[in-house]
């Protein structure tokens, strides 16, 4: 029982971690919270479904195309809405409100296009289940865990080991200094939003086979990712990964050992608890306190 819960917790936690990453990247780069972040998951799920199930493209190609499309949506969102509003020097709260509007637009658009019924994401692997050290689970679920962890690792490498990734972190830390070093901070912020959207879309594509695809998939799971980001330390990349995984584990263990009814409530209770007791999160991220 323990081992099964552990694996299941890690699987869903990995997805939460990916989503949390998006929230933290955006906060770091722009000092904002995007309510549309969860809907990038929905978008990813529908994009994945379109490429894989409707257009019958190979899974890997669908995966890449989903990532690329969401990346572009992220850039457009930042350049077309966020920066456009910033240039008008409006208060940050108006930008956050705008992201709520975007969120509903995405939900309604996907509903108009795909309807209200939950769509089934077809099986990806030929073997339906896989047994690893005595634990049996959907093959897609294992793949989900592997892909989440791999993406986190890749992102870590990109942000810390490449010149462009370091430049993006610099631009988030100190835009003025970054600009004076020749870093195009406007482009860097755009790419951060794009990455956040692309990662969330992958989360959506991973969730599809397990949860099915529906228009509010993202807003439900997105909230968990948000909670994970706060628990880890809002704005901290590693905090997001760890916070997401912890939340997934707690939720799964609560459901497994105690009650499934309250597992969501527990997740948000943890969120509130952290905001009161340790707003800087597990990774002691100062970003929240400083402003």
């Amino acid at each position, binding site marked *: 029982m323990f081992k099964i819960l552990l694996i299941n917790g890690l699987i869903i936690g990995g997805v939460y971690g990916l989503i949390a990453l998006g929230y933290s990247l955006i906060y770091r780069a722009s000092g904002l919270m995007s309510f549309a972040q969860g809907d990038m998951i929905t978008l990813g799920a529908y994009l994945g479904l379109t490429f894989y199930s409707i257009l019958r493209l190979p899974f890997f190609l669908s995966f890449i195309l989903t990532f690329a499309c969401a990346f572009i949506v992220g850039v457009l969102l930042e350049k077309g809405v966020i920066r456009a509003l910033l240039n008008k020097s409006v208060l940050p709260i108006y930008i956050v409100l705008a992201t709520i509007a975007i969120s509903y637009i995405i939900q309604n658009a996907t509903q108009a296009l795909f309807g209200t019924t939950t769509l089934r994401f077809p099986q990806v692997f030929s073997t339906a289940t896989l047994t690893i050290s005595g634990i049996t689970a959907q093959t897609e679920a294992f793949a989900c865990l592997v892909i989440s962890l791999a993406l986190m690792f890749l992102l870590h490498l990109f942000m810390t080991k490449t010149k462009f990734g*370091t430049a993006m972190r610099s631009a988030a830390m100190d835009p003025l200094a970054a600009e*004076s070093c020749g870093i195009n901070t406007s482009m860097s912020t755009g790419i951060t939003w794009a990455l956040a959207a692309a990662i969330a879309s992958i989360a959506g594509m991973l969730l599809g086979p397990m949860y099915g695809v529906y228009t509010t998939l993202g807003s439900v799971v997105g909230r968990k990712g948000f909670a994970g980001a706060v628990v880890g330390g809002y704005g901290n990349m590693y905090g997001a990964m760890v916070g997401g995984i912890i939340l997934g584990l707690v939720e799964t263990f609560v459901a497994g050992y105690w009650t499934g009814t309250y597992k969501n409530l527990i997740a948000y209770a943890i969120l509130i608890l952290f905001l009161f007791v340790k707003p800087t999160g597990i990774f002691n991220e100062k970003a929240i306190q400083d402003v």
Partner: protein
Amino acid sequence: MAKLLELIDFHYYYGNIHSVKGINMHVEEGEMVTLIGANGAGKTTTLQSISGLTKRKGIQGRILFNGKEIQTYPGSKVAGLGIAQALEGRHIFSKLTVDENLRMGAYLRKDTKNIKDDIDSVYKRFPRLLERRNQLGGTLSGGEQQMLAIGRCLLSRPKLMLLDEPSLGLAPLIVKEIFIAINEINREGTTVLFVEQNSKIALSTAHRGYVMQTGEIVMSDTCKNLMENTEVKKAYLGV
């Protein structure tokens, strides 16, 4: 000597606030020029306008670098022309190491293999940075951060180096060390324009000086003459 930098009837507006009111100044190639003045005179605004860090729409007038108008360029593009700036308050990337901070200074450079040598020469110039090369920028002392800010500029191999109050908040001994380094950098061939509130050290380091007062240049001369000027003596040197 050729004019490397020239400001022609330069104004800056923060919305309705007219902060810089039509100044003319220039820096010749190889020169070291200082811009002094009291708080709020408009020194930072001027310097950051040159380096493309102020909002472009606030600018009126022209900024020429090597004869080319650059007042519409964004900061990252100005940096590409060979203008580096050590910002007021140092602006070190707090969560990057000393080494990474320096590398960011070389962000636009294509000659990657020379970067390592340039980093080493910064460490030779500022041995205190070498000892701390893997330390996070945010954990350095003020003096060390200023050295790093200057080092980061050098990593872009600039033609023109702009420094905004390099002495800000530093102990006299460190200030001296910093200005010895600035002097060396200039003698090695980099043109320097720096802003200072410490007029004494500014005028004894630079070749020429401009005195700025509430958005206007009220005096400009060689530093030697400025130091002997009675008004400057009274208002800026506390004599």
